[in-house]
């Protein structure tokens, strides 16, 4: 299946890119397992990383489906006011 992955803010900078397109097998994969593949299991997903599938917040144990857009991002700050 094909998964589109997006990174934002400080995560975009640490990944060195804003998005990826991944071809993965048909075995079930969760969002946090996707993170492990993307980082080569070098670093567990930090607890404060937020995850979304198709622009809706999801928990990291949610399974991804073919064609999904998965996003990883740091804690949000709508601009301190």
């Amino acid at each position, binding site marked *: 299946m094909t998964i589109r992955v997006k990174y*934002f*803010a*400080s995560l975009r900078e640490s990944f060195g890119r804003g998005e990826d397109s991944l071809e993965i097998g048909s075995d079930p994969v969760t969002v946090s397992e996707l993170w492990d593949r993307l980082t080569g299991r070098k670093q567990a997903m930090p607890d404060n990383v937020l995850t979304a599938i198709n*622009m809706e917040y999801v928990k990291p144990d949610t399974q991804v489906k073919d064609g999904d857009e998965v996003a990883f*991002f740091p*804690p949000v*700050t*709508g*601009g301190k*006011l």
Partner: protein
Amino acid sequence: MKVEIKTAKFDPWQEIKSYQEQMQKEGLFGAMASFVGSMRDFNDGDKVTAMELEHYPGMTEKHLEGICKEAGNKWELVDVLVLHRVGKIKVGDPIVLVCVWSAHRAAAFDACRFIMEDLKSKAPFWKQETLEQGKRWVEKNTQG
């Protein structure tokens, strides 16, 4: 209801005026509460000279529309306007406008606060400050 991400500086007072005129709901509302957030030149004890706001195009709008609909379920509202800047922002520039019209004041005040607090804690925006000693991402919220 209108939710819009602004990539250039906007005038909140002009936006309220023109939106209220075009919504054509005179007589339906007896109250309007608004909140305008602008850029400060200090944060966490440091002088901030500029900042850049990033968002997730598509998800940010969808999330803000969801917040407004949720407010509309909790209170009886006549209309809601939410504008939020992204991109390079200068000290003093307006960043966010939340404006709520309702029949009576309580719903307008309460819904305006509710939308603003949800926006601050859950809407996908990220802020990078430029300080005298370099740039930093802000990953926590200040208290209201």
